[in-house]
C-alpha cells in the first residue's frame, strides 16, 4: 500500500511540474464556461444552500442578481431564490475560482487561463478593487455601476489588448513575483505591476479612446490585488489535472464558502470533506474587532493548495505588517509547510530560503501525523453584507477535514484490496 501511495503521489507531482498556464482570453461567463446556464450563480467554496449562506455571500448573490437584471433589491432577490428559479453551485465544479464570496453570474467577464500541457482551463472574474465591492457582499448602486463599467470598458479593452499581444505566459510572471516580494494571495503588487507593464503597450493600441484606455490603466494601477484574480486560476488549472489519481493522498483543492471549509483529495475523486470554517484572528482596521468578522471565505486558498500564499510567506516578509507577527515568524511559517508537503517546485523559488522551491503537494497523511495544518494568509470580511474588508490575518483549515479524508481514504483502499 505504501508503495502504491508513493507512486500515485509522484504522478501528482509530475503533473504539477508539467503545468504550462497561459492567459489566452477574456470572455463572458455564459459564452465560455462549459455547461453554464442563464440562471446559474457560482460561488466560492464547497456547495451550500441559500439558507446556510453567511452575510457577505448572500449580499454578493443579491448583487449578482441585480447585475443580471433578475432582481431589484434584497427582497425581490430572495423571492426568486425561494421560488427555486436560481441554481447555485461551487465555482470549482465549473472549472472556476472566485475570491471572497466568489460570485460569478452569466454575463460577467472572466479571465480564461489555459494549461497548455493538459489542455484544461480555469476561469475567474476580474478584481473589482478594494472597499465596498461585490465580493465582500456589497450590492448598492455604486457596486453595480462599477461592474457594468468592467463589463463594457475594462474587459473589452483588455480583451482587445490580449488579442494584439497574443497569449501571456503566466508561469514566468508568477515565478518573478515571488522573487519581488509577492506571495500571490494577499500580496500581488509585483504581479499587478508586471501585468500592467506587459499589457500597457497593447492597451494603448486598442481602438478605444484615450479616456477609456487611461481609465483602464488607472484602474489596474489603483488595485494592488488585480493580479489575485489571475494567480488563482493559475493555481487551479495547474492542480486540476492532478485530480483523481487512485491512491494519491495529496490535496488538489481547498476552498471556503463563508460557512464551511472544504478540501478535495486526489485519490478520493470529487468528494468534498468539510467542517465549519474558522473565524480569523488577525489585524483589524480602525475600530473593528473579531466580533465583526465573518468566518473564513473564498476560493483564494487555492493559492496555498499549490504552495504560494501563506506557504510562501518567506517570500513576502512585509506581509507581517498586515497579518501580524514578525519577519522571523513569516520564515518559520514557510519552513513548517515543508513538513506537510510531498515536494518542492522546480520553478517557483523563495530567495531568502536559498532559492528553495515552494512547498508543493499537501499530504493529508503528513498533516495528521505532524499535527501541522496548512497556513493561510487571508483578508477578513465583515459578517454583515456590504461593509467590506475589516482586516487581514492568518487562519488554518479545520483538522476535521483532513481526519475525515483519511478515514475515507483507508476505507476506500481497504475496500479495493478485498
Amino acid at each position, binding site marked *: *500500500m505504501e508503495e502504491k*501511495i508513493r507512486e500515485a503521489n509522484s504522478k501528482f507531482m509530475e503533473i504539477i511540474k508539467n503545468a504550462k498556464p497561459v492567459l489566452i482570453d477574456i470572455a463572458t461567463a455564459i459564452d465560455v464556461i462549459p455547461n453554464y446556464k442563464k440562471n446559474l450563480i457560482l460561488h466560492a467554496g464547497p456547495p451550500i444552500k441559500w439558507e446556510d449562506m453567511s452575510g457577505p455571500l448572500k449580499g454578493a448573490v443579491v448583487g449578482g442578481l441585480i447585475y443580471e437584471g433578475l432582481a431589484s433589491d434584497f427582497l425581490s432577490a430572495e423571492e426568486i431564490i425561494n421560488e427555486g428559479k436560481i441554481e447555485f453551485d461551487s465555482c470549482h465544479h465549473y472549472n472556476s475560482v472566485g475570491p471572497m464570496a466568489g460570485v460569478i453570474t452569466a454575463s460577467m467577464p472572466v479571465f480564461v487561463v489555459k494549461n497548455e500541457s493538459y489542455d484544461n482551463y480555469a476561469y475567474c472574474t476580474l478584481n473589482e478593487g478594494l472597499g465596498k465591492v461585490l465580493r465582500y457582499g456589497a450590492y448598492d448602486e455604486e457596486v453595480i455601476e462599477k461592474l457594468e463599467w468592467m463589463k463594457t470598458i475594462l474587459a473589452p479593452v483588455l480583451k482587445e489588448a490580449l488579442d494584439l499581444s497574443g497569449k501571456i505566459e503566466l508561469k514566468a510572471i508568477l515565478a518573478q513575483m515571488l522573487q519581488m516580494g509577492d506571495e500571490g494571495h494577499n500580496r500581488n503588487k509585483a504581479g499587478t505591476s508586471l501585468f500592467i507593464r506587459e499589457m500597457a503597450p497593447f492597451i494603448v493600441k486598442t481602438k478605444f479612446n484615450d479616456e477609456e484606455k487611461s481609465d483602464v490603466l488607472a484602474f489596474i494601477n489603483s488595485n494592488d490585488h488585480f493580479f489575485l484574480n489571475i494567480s488563482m486560476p493559475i493555481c487551479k488549472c495547474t492542480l486540476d489535472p492532478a485530480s483523481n489519481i487512485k491512491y494519491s*493522498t495529496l490535496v488538489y483543492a481547498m476552498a471556503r464558502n463563508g460557512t464551511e471549509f472544504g478540501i478535495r483529495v486526489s485519490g478520493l475523486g470529487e468528494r468534498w470533506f468539510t467542517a465549519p470554517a474558522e473565524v480569523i484572528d488577525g489585524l483589524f482596521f480602525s475600530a473593528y474587532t473579531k466580533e465583526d468578522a465573518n468566518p473564513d471565505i473564498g476560493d483564494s486558498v487555492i493559492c496555498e493548495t499549490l504552495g504560494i500564499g501563506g506557504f510562501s510567506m518567506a517570500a513576502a516578509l512585509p506581509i507581517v505588517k498586515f497579518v501580524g507577527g514578525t519577519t522571523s515568524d513569516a520564515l518559520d511559517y514557510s519552513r513548517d509547510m515543508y513538513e506537510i508537503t510531498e515536494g518542492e517546485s522546480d520553478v517557483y523559488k523563495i530567495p531568502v530560503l536559498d532559492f528553495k522551491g515552494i512547498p508543493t503537494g499537501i499530504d493529508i497523511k503528513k498533516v*495528521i501525523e505532524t*499535527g501541522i495544518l496548512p497556513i493561510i494568509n487571508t483578508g477578513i470580511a465583515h459578517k454583515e453584507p456590504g461593509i467590506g474588508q475589516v482586516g487581514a490575518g492568518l487562519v488554518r483549515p479545520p483538522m476535521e477535514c483532513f481526519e475525515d479524508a*483519511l478515514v475515507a481514504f*483507508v476505507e476506500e483502499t481497504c475496500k479495493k484490496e478485498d
Partner: protein
Amino acid sequence: MNVYSKVIKNTYYDSVVLMLISKEIKEIEDIENVIVAMGTDMNINLAKSLSIYTEELEDISSNDLFISFSSKEDVFNKVIDKVDELLNKKAKTANDTYHHKTLLTEIKNNPSSNLVFISVAGEYAYEQAKIAIDNNKNVMMFSDNVSVEHERKLKELAVSKGLLMMGPDCGTCIINNKPLGFSNSVRKGPIGIIGSSGTGIQEVSVLIDYLGSGVSQVIGTGGRDMKKEIGGLTTIQSLKLLLEDKKTEVIVIISKKPDEEVIKKVLALVKLTSKKILVSFIDSSPELVESYNVKYTSSLEEAAYVAVSYIDKNIFYEELEYDIKGLINDESKRHNNNQNNLLGLFVGGTLATEADRIIRKDNVLYSNVYKSEYFVNKLEKNKNIILDLGDDEFTNGKAHPMIDPSFRTSLIKSIDESVMVLIFDIVLGYGSHEDPVSELLPSLKEVMLRFINNDSFLTVITSICGSETDYQDYLSSKERLEDIGVIVLRSNRQVADLANRLLNVKKHKNLDKIFNSDLSVISLGIDTFYNEMKDSDINVSKVNWRPTANGNKKMRDLLAKLKE
C-alpha cells in the same frame, strides 16, 4: 563423329527418370545421339543400332547403368557432370520439399512421427495439441498463455493414452539425447531429469556434464505442472517412466514453488525404488521432502553435484569457497560510499528465482519474481533489484531475451551510481543467441568505464549456463568476459552467493563507519538531554517534535494501516 560411353556398376534408376535425363543431355551442343539407360539386352541393342556401342559396354549387366553418346567435339566430362547433376536432383525431389498445411494431413503422411513440437500462439495451441494426442503423438508445447483447464484436459487425455504432454510453457527437453527447445549439448549418462522450469533444467544438465556424467532423458513438464490445479500429472507420469527406465539410475526433479499437496502425490511414488531420487524445489519444505526419503537440495548446483555423486564416488558437494575471501577483499575496497545496491538482470526465470531467494534472505529486495508483492518494472535508484527479463511484461512484442539480447544491453547502459554489484546469467545452447557474450561486451565495458571515471567501481559477476560442447564456445565466452574484468563463476548459486557476501561486507562497513567519524547527534525528545550534550561539546541539533497525530489513537491506527 566421336563415340563415348561410361558404365556405372550396380546402380539402378527407373526408366522414366533415365529417359528424361537422356532428353536433357541431347540438348547439349554437339551431341548427335545419346542413351542413358540400364544395361539390359534391349538397351544394348538400341545403342548398337544408333552406332554408339563401344567396347566399355562389353561386360555390362542389366544391373549396371550406362551412358553412351556420339558428338563432334570431346564433351565427355561435360556430359558426365550433367548426368551426375540430374541424377542427384531427381533423387531429392523424390523426397518432397512440399509442406502440408494442416497438422492432421502431416500426421497422416508422416506415420513414423512420434512427437509434435508446438510453438504456435497460445490461443491456438490447445486445439493443435488435442489433434496430436487424439492421433497418438506425444506433445512438447513451448506455447504459453494456455488456460489451466485446457492444460489439465490435455494432460489427462495424454495420461489415459500413455502419451507425454510436455507443457504448456515447456521450453527445454532432451529426449533420447536429442535437444529440443532451449537446451544444451550434454553427455549421455544415467541421470534422468524431470523439470517444470526451463533454465533450472538447463543449469542442472550443464553442471552434470561439467562433472563428467550425463543424462538419460530430460523431460520438461511445463511451468504449472507442480501446481495443485494441474496436480503434477506429467511429473508423475514421467517419474513412473524413469523409475522403470533401465538407462536411468538417478532421478532429479526440479520445480519453482511447487504446491505441497502435489509434492506429496509425486513423492509417494518413490517408496519402493532402489534408484536414487533427489529434488531441487525452490521455496518448499525440506522436512516434507526428506520424510519421503528423498534428498532435498537447496540449489540447482547442489542438485547436480548430489546427482553425480551417486554415480561417481569421487564427486561430493561442498559449497566451494574458491578464493572467495581474497576476491571479496579486492572488490569491496573499490566501491565508494554511495554504492550500496545490487542489480540482477536475468534471462532465465529459474535462475532469477534462485538468485532472488539467496539475496532476499539477508536484504530488502525488489523483484518481479514474486508477483504478489510490489511489482518492479523499471530500474530505481537505491534499491536492490532483480529482474527476470523473460517475464511476460518485458516480452510483449519483443523476442525472448535469450534470443535477442538488445533489451538487456540497453538496461546495462543505464545502471545508476547507487549500484555496487551487477549479476546476470548467460545461457548458451540450442535456441539461444549465437554469441551472447559478443552482444553484451560493449555495454559492459561502457558502464564499467563510466563507474571508474566517476571514482567508483562496478563489480560484475556472471555464470555461463552452458556445456563445453555447446556451439557458442563456453571457454571463449568465459575468457572474453574475464578479459574485461567480469567475474565468471561456475554456477548461478555461486554468483548470487558472492553478490550477497559483498552486500553484507558493505553493510558491515557502513555500520563500522560510526566508530571512525565525528559523532554528530540529532536529539528528539527531552530538552535536558539536548542541553547536556551541548554542554559536553557534542555536535548536536534538536527537532521541535510533537506527538504523532497529537496523540489521536484513531488517526494513528489509520496512518499505520497505510504504511503496510
